[in-house]
Structures are given as structure tokens and as C-alpha cells.
């Protein structure tokens, strides 16, 4: 594989020389832009809420929206999206209700996860969205298993999984890619190379010339793409999904991007990186870049943008209103879903909590 980075639109939103635009209609462009903008505004709002102490924790995608939305847009409905914790935008793009997303953040009675996980740990079997878990890299072999499982059952389902540059250091990345190579599994590995794993810069994460080159160790395809160029990300992802679907096996996509924000609301990146570096990457911001492209293509204008901004603001606002006032889950729910039924020892533990044996019951 070559180490060149595929680009389609440049930092000013102009189409690069001899770049071919992916076959997308203007409605697709709009869907993509809306999803990216939504992701951005949602992150901003949630981060403010966390600062106000109204939610406990949040993980944003600031600067990585192109890598996330561009990849997810390449999937068909029956395909699986196997997320890390930073791809809320992809879930919403696939139809995950904002209200559900917010209820999960509040961990309230309407949270489909029943208030059991930290914010940004969503999932939906119906939408073929695997459920987020915090441990880095564990989802990568799941994607291979989902893909193999579908094939064994004769179903046409590709699994696309997201992870960060840091995750490539874990054994789970290695075993997943190796299994995918051996079984030619219909899977797409998307590494959001955002240059950092919390405070650890890429060069301390691995000495390899690129993340994409790691594909050679597994006999799978590898490709590097400008992760801030949503059209470039979409086209490599689309190609990889097609390769997987047609029996051509797995692809490791390295989306070269940058985490403009903090790792999470618990992190302060100024402790480990220079503002200039951040500023430099902000100039290549994927959202501004794609908007410039749309305007340049006369597919979009300021009015439309204002209207879209407002509708997104309103949608988030009203969903928040609903979600914020809901009660926590019932205490009984603590003991459910450990197993399909509640065994005797959990019944005892539940009862001890609900009907305490002694006078202190409040």
C-alpha cells in the first residue's frame, strides 16, 4: 500500500486537481453536512451542560466529524456500525433518536441502557448499532464476529468499526485484524487517527510510518485518507464496504485527523499540547471545509445555513427539555439483565435493598 493521503477537496473547499468526486447527489451532500453540523452543535451544547453540572460527563467529536460521518454514510441499512465512544454523530445519522441519546446521557427511566453506563454509551440492535463500551479496542474483534456471523447465516451484512490511534496498540486490534485477514471477513476497520490517546501523541504510540501500513501484517487492504475531507473519507469507506460486500475481505482505513477538543470533559489538553498546534488544525476544520465546498458548488448558501442552524438548535433544545426532567430508573432495575432471569441470589440481594429486615428501613 502507498503512504500517500487521499484528498478530494482542499482546505479551502475547492476540488483538488484530478480528484474525482464520489457519486453522490446534492441530497446526499445535504444529509452529510447536516449530520456533521448536528454533531458539532450537539457536542457544544453537551459540553456546556457538563460545565454547568447538568450532565456528568461527555465525549465530543470536535474536528473528527468528517471521519465519523463520512465513514458511516458508506453503510447500507443492514450493515453494522461497531462504535468506539466518540461516534455519536454516526448513530444519529443512522436514525438513533436524539431523545434516546439524551436519555442515555441522563441515565434516566427512558434510557434504553437503563442508566447503567456513563454518558455516550448508546446502542441499538434494531439499527445495527453495537453497544458502546469504555475499554479501548474490545469492539474490534466484535466487528469481525458480527461480520463472520452474518456470512455464516447467509446474510449480506458488512461490519464497520471505529477506533482511535491509541487502540491500535492493544492486542484486540491485532487479533481482530489477523482473524479478518485469515477469514476474509466482510469488515471495515476505521482508525480515527486524531494524533492523540489522551496525552500520548502518535509518535509515542507506535514507531510505524503510518497506521494504514499495519494492514500488511494481516494481508488486508490498507488506505490513508485525509480525515478532515468528508468526501475523501466517504469514497474510501464506500470502496472498502463494497470490497467487503463482494468477498474481497477487510480494509484498514486510516483517517488522518485531529482531536480539536479535550479527550473528554474530564481532560484539559493544554497540559500536554501547544495551542498553535490546535490552531493549525482548526484551519483544516472538516465542517468549515465542507461548507465552503457546498457554497463553492452553489449547493448551499448563508440563509439555508442559518435556517439549518436554527432547526438543529430547536431540535436539541426540545429533546433536552423532555429528557432532562425524567426520573431515574427504578431501583429493581439494578438486578435485571445480569441474566435473562433474576436468579435466587440476586432476588435476595434485591429484597435486602428494597425491604430491609430491620427498623432502619426508610
Amino acid at each position, binding site marked *: 500500500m502507498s503512504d500517500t493521503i487521499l484528498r478530494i477537496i482542499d482546505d479551502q473547499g475547492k476540488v483538488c486537481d484530478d480528484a474525482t468526486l464520489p457519486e453522490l447527489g446534492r441530497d446526499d451532500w445535504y444529509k452529510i453536512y447536516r449530520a456533521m453540523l448536528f454533531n458539532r452543535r450537539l457536542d457544544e451544547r453537551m459540553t456546556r451542560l457538563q460545565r454547568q453540572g447538568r450532565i456528568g460527563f461527555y465525549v465530543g467529536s470536535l474536528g473528527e466529524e468528517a471521519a465519523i460521518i463520512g465513514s458511516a454514510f458508506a453503510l447500507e441499512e443492514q450493515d*453494522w456500525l*461497531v462504535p468506539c465512544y466518540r461516534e455519536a454523530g454516526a448513530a444519529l445519522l443512522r436514525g438513533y433518536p436524539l431523545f434516546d441519546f439524551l436519555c442515555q446521557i441522563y441515565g434516566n427511566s427512558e*434510557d*434504553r*441502557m*437503563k442508566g*447503567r*453506563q456513563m454518558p455516550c*454509551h448508546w*446502542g*441499538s*440492535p434494531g439499527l445495527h448499532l*453495537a*453497544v458502546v*463500551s469504555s*475499554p479501548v479496542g*474490545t469492539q*474490534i*474483534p*466484535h*466487528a*469481525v*464476529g*458480527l*461480520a*463472520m*456471523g*452474518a456470512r*455464516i*447465516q447467509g446474510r449480506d*451484512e458488512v*461490519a464497520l468499526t471505529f477506533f482511535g490511534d491509541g487502540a491500535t496498540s492493544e*492486542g*484486540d486490534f*491485532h*487479533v*481482530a485484524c*489477523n*482473524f479478518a485477514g*485469515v477469514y476474509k471477513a466482510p469488515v471495515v476497520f476505521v482508525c480515527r487517527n486524531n494524533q492523540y490517546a489522551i496525552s500520548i501523541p502518535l509518535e509515542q504510540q507506535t514507531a510505524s510510518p503510518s497506521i494504514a501500513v499495519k494492514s500488511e501484517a494481516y494481508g488486508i487492504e490498507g488506505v490513508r485518507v485525509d480525515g478532515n475531507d468528508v468526501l475523501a473519507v466517504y469514497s474510501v469507506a464506500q470502496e472498502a464496504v463494497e470490497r467487503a460486500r463482494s468477498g474481497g475481505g477487510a480494509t484498514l482505513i486510516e483517517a488522518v485527523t485531529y482531536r480539536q477538543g479535550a479527550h473528554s470533559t474530564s481532560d484539559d489538553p493544554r497540559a500536554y499540547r501547544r495551542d498553535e498546534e490546535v490552531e493549525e488544525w482548526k484551519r483544516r476544520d472538516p465542517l468549515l471545509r465542507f461548507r465552503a465546498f457546498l457554497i463553492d458548488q452553489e449547493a448551499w448558501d448563508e440563509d439555508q445555513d442559518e435556517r439549518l442552524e436554527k432547526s438543529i438548535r430547536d431540535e436539541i433544545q426540545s429533546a433536552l427539555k423532555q429528557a432532562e426532567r425524567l426520573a431515574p430508573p427504578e431501583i429493581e432495575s439494578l438486578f*435485571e*439483565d*445480569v*441474566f*435473562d432471569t433474576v*436468579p*435466587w*441470589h440476586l432476588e435476595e440481594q434485591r429484597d435486602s435493598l428494597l425491604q430491609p429486615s430491620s427498623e432502619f428501613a426508610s
Partner: protein
Amino acid sequence: MPTMNMIQAVNDALRVEMRRDSRVVVFGEDVGRFGGVFRATQGLQDEFGPDRSFDTPLAEAGIIGTAIGMAMNGLRPVPEIQFADFVYPAFDQIVNEAAKIRYRSGGQFTCPMVIRMPYGGGIRGGHYHSQSPETYFIHTAGLKVVVPSNPHDAKGLLIASIRDENPVIFMEPKRIYRAAKGEVEEGDYVIELSKARVARIGSDVSVLAYGAMLHTALEAAETAASEDGISCEVIDLRTLMPFDIDTILESVRKTGRVVIVHEAPRTCGFGAELAATICEKALLNLQAPIARVTGFDTPFPYTLESEYLPNEKRIREALAGVMNF
């Protein structure tokens, strides 16, 4: 009824379920073409093809990690870990993923799979071909743990485990893979999980055991009866999580004395939980402290393995101890 050893019973159970349910797939290191280093999956690839019985690269995390994905997507994977001693590279996938997927998704996702693993000592396997890691799994909420002691149970419990909706750790006592022979019903039957079996009726002491140790316990019980005049009720626990508290307490209330036998190291072993639970629920029935006859708190040795493993002598000493308290 045909006579089988444990390996044949496990193989038969897999065959029955694979015939009945096309979602059942088996895989692992040397599992496919070779049929497993203990031959438990022999012939399955021939009958069901390489899509449903296959070999994997040498990576336990990959075996369990992909099995989880398959289970989330409608299959019933039955991965094999070649020796329980080698399950740890998959520990994160088992403990942080398989065990928690149902809970953390609010019951939206499930992870029905059976992780088969030969375990235990007695084959001169030293540190790494002898371990009994059940405690790690019993302590992990969301996993069931099953340990058969004979071919008939092995088949019925394995079929029940495959049909169970939860991840099940199925530990096979390899020491008696071939030694334990017995009649096994043909075709399709299940032995309900979380039901212990009274393997020997007695009145003086309740002896709780499982896996290969059940046989050591039974032998000790016979000698204790003939030589020492002690009447042991021996209970084969069969499922360790969730365990059958009723059968245990019924016996303890009758005998008032308890000896627990397992190969795993003593400290925080399953015997500790059994003892603590029994003391909580039946303290006033106890006529003597509960005795634990277990593996020692050392790594598993090679030359001195018969000194390490609980044997008839140590069990009889414990029986005498609780009788003469």
C-alpha cells in the same frame, strides 16, 4: 443406552445441538480439521462443514472476541479454549464484554455462548495444564459456570448450556475425560442448570464437590462409611453459578456438618463462598466448623501434584475433624 466417556459425551452433545440448531458453531485452536487436541470436536467439520466447525489462529482474545460478535448477531457460538490455563488472554473479552453486554445494553443485546475449556489437574501438566480458574468466573456477574462430573451430565448440561440465553463457562474435568465412562442417553436431552445432584445419600456429613473431585469425594465417602463408620451425603454441585442453594441447605440441615472439596486454590475459592453462605443461612444447624479440602494456595506443581490435589486421605481427615469437633 450406549456407554461413553466424557469426551464422547461432549462430542455427542455438540453433534446433537448442531443438528438441531443451525446457529450453533464450534471453533478454536486445532478444533476444526484436527478435532481438538482432546478430540472433543472430532468429526464435526466433516458433518457440518468448515463454516460451522473451524480452526482459529492462536489467539484466545480473538476466539472469544469474535464469538461475542457472532452471538450478538444471532449465532450460538461454542468456542473452545484449549486449556483453562490459557483463557487469560481472553479474560478482558469474557469479563468486561461477554459478561456485561446484556446488562450494559439494558437487555437489548444478549450474548448466548458456551466457552468450553478442559480444566484441572491429575495429568502431570504442571503449572499450565492443570489450573482450576472457576473462581474468576463465578465472581464475575453475568456469567454462568457449569462443571460436569460424568458423561451423562456432561452431555445434558452442555446441551442445556448451549440453549441457555446467557454466556456459560463450561469447564470439563480433563483428568476424567477418558476415565469416567457411563451410560448416556441417545439424542436430545437436557439437565437443567442450577440443579445439584445428590450423588450419595448419607446422614452425618454433607460433602460438596464437583468435577473430577466428585469421584475422589465419593471414594472417600465409601471408605469413611466402611472404615470410620461415617455416613456421608455427597452432593455434585454441577452448576457453580448460580448454584443450587436449596439442595445444599436441605442436606446441611439434615447432617449439620459440611466438608467442601475442590481442586482450585483455597483462598477465595468457591469453597469460601459456599462456607460463607451456609454459615449465613444455617449457622444454628452447624455442629462443627465447615471444612475445606482444596488445592493449596500455590501455583500448580508438577512432581508433587498428587500431594497438591485433594485425595481420599485428606478428605477422611476432614471428615474425622468435623465428626470429632
